[in-house]
């Protein structure tokens, strides 16, 4: 199976008030986390991104962890203190240009010896544009068009250096194989770029591409273009349905379904007994979704100030206002159908007799794996053996040390089951994941070569 680790960060899941909670900025935190995951022979590390601070009603949101370091920079530093583990960064395609993305990821892949991965996301938040030269808002369809063209252009750039482009032979005086190394041209609705790429081909040729596609269009996009899909579907039946749906879409576009890995995120909560784990889970959930956080998460759906609503009362009957100016900014939207989601929450409340806070706690529970280490290992294995997932991206509510007990207690169980490696056998992330190398060696077009 595939195992990744996400760094607990900027959202209510991270309980910063926990005594074990450390810095989410200092490099020592990232180094501790990375070394732990590598000790557990995980496949990859995973960093999220944010390009603006979250605001609520126009004020910087101050209750959750706020602030984060630059993803590329942290991953390059981590490349120096790890040897095997994959280094995946979430990087926006809306506010970055293909030439820079291609050279950053190629450089990271070279510096890490073939361990780079890119989680391609788009930005929906027009306010994020206020921090960037290109500014402005891209509609939903244009964002995907730009994301697709960005990915195509980046791959064209990666392919512009053949794997034998650098000769570097002092005897013959030839450094480059020919004078057209790096030639590229890409024209689309979003980009019209041409010239010569400046970074040599990296060990993986194409760093691994991850995507998070949930809507039908997003799933098709991911099925046709990505190597792995990062999903939110953690419940067993949902996960199986998603797995079957996406693998079918992959086959439909003529790709090998085994070459697109499905990796939901999940959080683990352990105890020496099942009862202890359940107690701990309840405690963590009550700290993650405190009364105020319950209101804020509901505001994500209602798009209005709910501070007058009682979190311990029923899910409010008042209508969401999805078309009003955004009340919370800098977070990906939770739903495209605010009225439907609000009604579903009310139904949950009626069915179980739950308060708003209890409904929110249930809806946002990321901890699919609660139990003893043996139970958690068995449950993770059950997902993998039953075509629900190809693996998981695991996290914890404590940053950065929350991964420690997973590696100390669950990893040996998974190894005993024979489903997790006990040492790395490949050198690149593609090899860890069982992904074939990209087609071809990145030869430039013959037409260009003949002109030299």
């Amino acid at each position, binding site marked *: 199976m595939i195992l990744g680790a996400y760094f607990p960060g900027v959202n209510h899941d991270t309980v*910063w008030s926990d005594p074990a909670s450390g810095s989410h*900025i200092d*490099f020592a935190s990232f*180094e501790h986390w990375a070394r732990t995951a590598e000790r557990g022979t995980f496949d990859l590390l995973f960093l999220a991104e*944010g*390009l603006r*601070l979250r605001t609520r009603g126009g*004020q910087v949101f*101050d*209750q959750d*962890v*706020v*602030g*984060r*370091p*630059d993803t*590329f*920079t*942290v991953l390059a*530093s981590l*490349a*120096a*203190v790890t040897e095997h583990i994959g280094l995946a960064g979430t990087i926006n395609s809306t*506010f*970055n*240009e293909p*030439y*820079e993305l291609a050279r*950053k990821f190629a*450089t990271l892949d*070279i*510096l890490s010896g073939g361990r780079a991965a890119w989680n391609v996301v788009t930005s929906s938040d027009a306010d994020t544009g*206020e*921090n*960037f*030269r*290109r*500014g402005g808002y891209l509609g939903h369809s244009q964002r995907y068009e730009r994301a697709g063209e960005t990915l195509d252009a980046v791959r064209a750039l990666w392919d512009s*250096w053949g794997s034998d482009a*650098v000769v*570097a032979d*002092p005897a013959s*005086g*030839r*450094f*480059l194989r*020919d*004078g*057209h*190394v*790096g030639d590229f041209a890409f024209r689309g609705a979003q*980009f019209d*770029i*041409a*010239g010569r790429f*400046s*970074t*040599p081909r990296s060990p993986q040729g194409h760093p691994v591409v991850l995507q998070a596609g949930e809507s039908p269009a997003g799933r098709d996009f991911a099925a046709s273009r990505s190597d792995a899909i990062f999903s939110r579907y953690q419940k067993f039946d949902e996960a199986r349905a998603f797995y079957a749906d996406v693998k079918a879409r992959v086959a439909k576009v003529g790709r090998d379904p085994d070459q697109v890995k499905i990796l939901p995120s999940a959080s683990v909560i352990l105890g020496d007994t099942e009862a202890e784990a359940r107690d701990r889970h309840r405690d963590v959930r009550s700290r993650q979704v*405190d009364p105020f956080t319950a209101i804020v998460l509901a505001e994500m759906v209602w798009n209005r100030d709910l501070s007058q609503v009682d979190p311990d009362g029923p899910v409010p009957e008042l209508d969401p206002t999805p078309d009003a100016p955004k009340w919370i900014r800098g977070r990906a939207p939770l739903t495209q159908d605010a009225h439907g989601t609000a009604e579903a929450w009310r139904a949950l409340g009626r069915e179980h007799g739950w308060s708003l806070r209890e409904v929110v706690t249930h809806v946002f529970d990321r901890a699919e794996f609660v139990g003893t280490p043996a139970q958690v290992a068995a449950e993770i294995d059950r997902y993998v053996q039953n075509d629900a997932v190809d693996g998981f991206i695991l996290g914890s509510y404590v940053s950065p040390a929350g991964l420690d007990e997973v590696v100390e207690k669950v990893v040996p169980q998974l190894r005993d089951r024979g489903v997790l490696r006990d040492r790395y056998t490949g050198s690149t992330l593609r090899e860890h994941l069982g992904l074939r190398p990209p087609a071809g060696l990145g030869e430039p077009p013959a037409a260009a070569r003949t002109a*030299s």
Partner: protein
Amino acid sequence: MAPIHLAVALDGAGWHPAAWREPGARPDLLFTARYWAALARAAERGLLDLVTIEDGLGLQSGDHLAAGIDGADRRTDQVRGRLDAELVAAFVAPLTRHVGLVPTVTTTHTEPFHIASAISTLDHDSHGRAGWRVQTSARADEAAHFGRRMLPEIRRETLDTPETVAAVADLFEEAADAVEVVRRLWDSWEDDAEIRDAATNRFLDRDKIHTIDFEGRFFSVRGPGIVPRSPQGQPLVVALAHARAAYELAARAADVVFTTPQGAADIPAILGEIRAAQHAVGRTLPPLRVLADLVVVLDTDADAAHARLRRLEEHGPLRSDAAVLAGTPTALADLLESWRDEGVDGSRLRPAVLPTDLDAIVDRLVPQLQERGLFRTAYGPGTLRERFGLERPASRYAGVAA
């Protein structure tokens, strides 16, 4: 007199375009992690102030002022290709403890917001050793790699046309705006913004986070930044300057300026120009620290050094803005001392061949300078800024209502 500051400029196989053919060069390793780790460690062994790492968003060119729109010269006999300098610096940060890490990042195409986040994070990861060498790009081929703006194609014969002069002036003005944005973003989190106050359930004191609300001719950036304030607060900003427009950019934006005297006699005039530029722009930062750039070919005797330079030049001349010294470490120490006596704060040496000339700097020049009392014998504590006598500034927004 104060000791001198010594920086080294790292680029590919060395500063000379034929460097990669030399016996000591490692052309097979240029695009590997261990090559750059070894160079940074060598610089640290020599107690150097900092290393700069060259970069650009296009392929190297033997002479871009002679080139066509596609950047090129389509030569195959010189080093072509680069790694991203900021990521190389980030990679070597955990492998070193003292040496300053100063990657080049262009302001012409790269987003100031991304630059601010990246250099601030480099400062966190290196515990206060990050710098940024500000560079503009007037190359039309680089602009075509982004497709967002057109730049006039500049050739040697069109350097002085009004169109070129105006375009270059705009690039410098844009660079000054970019540095202003980056510096404001670095200050947009006050030092003690993160409070983790469980009693009030507040992670952050939102009154200590500030928008920067920059609006300029070329772009607008609202802020705040996403990275908490870094160990240096303001990482070191450096710029290379040869002429008035660039001196003024340095005076407006930089902490350290690299200059290119052709000899000791040039230095008083250069320092005068820098003083005038600082006066003209109304500089409020501490006075610019001035380092003089020099390309070096070093050998144990002068004849051997000259022979090495001749061998390099057989493959084509080095087109250099900076003076070139081929000689002994003693000759170089004499020259650095004489330049220091004319008033520069130190030098940035550009090794003609890597690692050969870097090793000569570290193992032979540095001991000579130490014997003369001109160079440190151990790294002191403190950040890169402090090494240059620059205090850690308070955030410009401290005490300002958010």
